[in-house]
């Protein structure tokens, strides 16, 4: 209980301080006619979150973007794991495929987005594809790294028992790679949320995601709604990151990174 409190209190204190500074800046430093630059936090809550019509507009936008991000992430996970497993099975496959995974990562996604629009229209598919492309590389790279980094003596152990490729993959390589896979998933989950919002920004047609709302509000000088949308989008990003953090801790509880030292380590020469 005490440690939980110790974990929550510091970030809570920072949040309170930030809101306090925000409040002061908005109400004291900025004149009333320029307050659209930084609306007061209470005005943001009042207008964006307490007005049912406004809130439902924001939530509908968020729901659409969340759906795009999660479908995109799901596809990226399936494709990314499959690619990494394939590459881990033979060096020639890795040599043939990995450079293109890197290329995919280095092409600015913004350059591809208009093309997706031409090819697949400006609807759900193109937005999902944007997310997949952004989220794919961290999964491929981390999974491959994890599958390749299994201890040599563990491989020897499996060789001694004449274990086949599949046994080795499922009983040794994949479980050993889980911490690395989850590192990739956490990066990709965040990237996928960003991908959904960036996609919204560019695909101005079709139903409005939260990214589209973020694009529209400042043009209407609706700063309170803009702040509301930004806050909701970041809360969603945080939730996704947290979810994968919890999942990762559950699944890789055995890993060194999850062990809490009972006492500080002794100096080496004691």
């Amino acid at each position, binding site marked *: 209980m005490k440690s939980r409190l110790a974990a929550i209190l510091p970030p809570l204190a920072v949040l309170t301080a930030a809101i306090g500074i925000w409040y002061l800046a908005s109400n004291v430093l900025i004149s009333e006619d320029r307050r659209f630059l930084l609306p007061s936090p209470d005005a943001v809550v009042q207008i964006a979150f307490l007005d049912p019509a406004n809130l439902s507009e924001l939530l509908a936008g968020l729901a659409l973007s969340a759906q795009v991000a999660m479908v995109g992430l799901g596809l990226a996970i399936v494709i990314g794991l499959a690619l990494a497993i394939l590459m881990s099975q033979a060096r020639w496959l890795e040599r043939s495929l990995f450079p293109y995974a890197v290329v995919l990562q280095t092409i600015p996604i913004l350059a591809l987005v208009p093309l997706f629009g031409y090819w697949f229209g400006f609807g759900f598919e193109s937005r999902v594809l944007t997310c997949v492309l952004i989220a794919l590389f961290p999964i491929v790279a981390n999974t491959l790294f994890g599958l390749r980094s299994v201890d040599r*003596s563990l491989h020897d*152990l499996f*060789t*001694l*028992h*004449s*274990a086949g490729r599949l046994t080795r993959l499922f009983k040794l390589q994949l479980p050993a790679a889980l911490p690395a896979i989850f590192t990739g998933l956490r990066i990709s989950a965040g990237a996928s949320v960003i991908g959904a919002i960036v996609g919204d920004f560019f695909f101005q047609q079709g139903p409005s995601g939260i990214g589209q709302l973020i694009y529209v509000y400042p043009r209407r000088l609706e700063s309170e709604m803009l702040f509301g949308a930004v806050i909701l989008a970041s809360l969603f990003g945080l939730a996704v990151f947290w979810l994968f953090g919890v999942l990762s801790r559950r699944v*890789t509880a*055995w890993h060194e990174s999850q062990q809490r030292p009972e006492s500080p380590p002794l100096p080496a020469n004691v």
Partner: protein
Amino acid sequence: MTSPTNSQIKEMAILAGTERIALRITDLCVQYATGTLALSNVSLTLRQGEFVAVVGPSGCGKSSMLRVAAGLLAASQGSATRSTEHVGFVFQDPTLLPWRTVRGNVELSGELRGTRRAERKAKAAEAIGKVGLSDVAGQRPGTLSGGMRMRVSLARTLASQPELMLLDEPFAAVDEITRGRLCDDLQRLFVADKFAALFVTHSIAEAVFLASRVLVLSDRPGRLIGEVPVPLPYPRSPQVRFTSEFTELTAQVSTLLTDGEKPLRAKKKKARETAA
């Protein structure tokens, strides 16, 4: 006519086929991909139920010899023939799967060999009992001490009921006290299970305590430069280490090791002199 020595009698028994051979290494050479010759013309015979220790300086190819015997490494020349498929290998590190419990790790051998679930579980429980870890069978290796992890590794090897045990400096990474205890454990298991063991180690005392024969390898490339029979009867009590006979035997092995280095040192010295 002189009467035959003990080892000659054993040799004759082997020839007559009355004594089973667990492992025969013939003229074994191991050369690494880098071109380094690690092992040169080593031959040895390991009989069923015999415990042979191999000592030698670092890098003399002891581990390579063991890896060839296990089929993990190809011989550059010569051969290693095993009479049994039931081979257990104990690595330098415990080599455990950190995501599995002690029980899960010990069951792994059976799992990979396709042993039936019930049989596998029973064998694992028995092996865990033998190394005295029944009370932590449900824990993961991360929560255990180094010595306990090594015991799990021993149990995993025992669970497959090997006829031939290959041990690659298994206790090198644990502290002195734990090492002594693990040696006692290993000897107890050997006496109970009667497997043939080829035990590679840096420690002369460990070799003499455990083995019925100690083979000494030279500096790289490793060649067999001597053999010290250890006539102490099994089971050996931990106190045997304090007897004069034990000290005498370790001194013999130690002398062989240092003598093995002498020609090399002389060679190096000569090389230095000619260079000067």
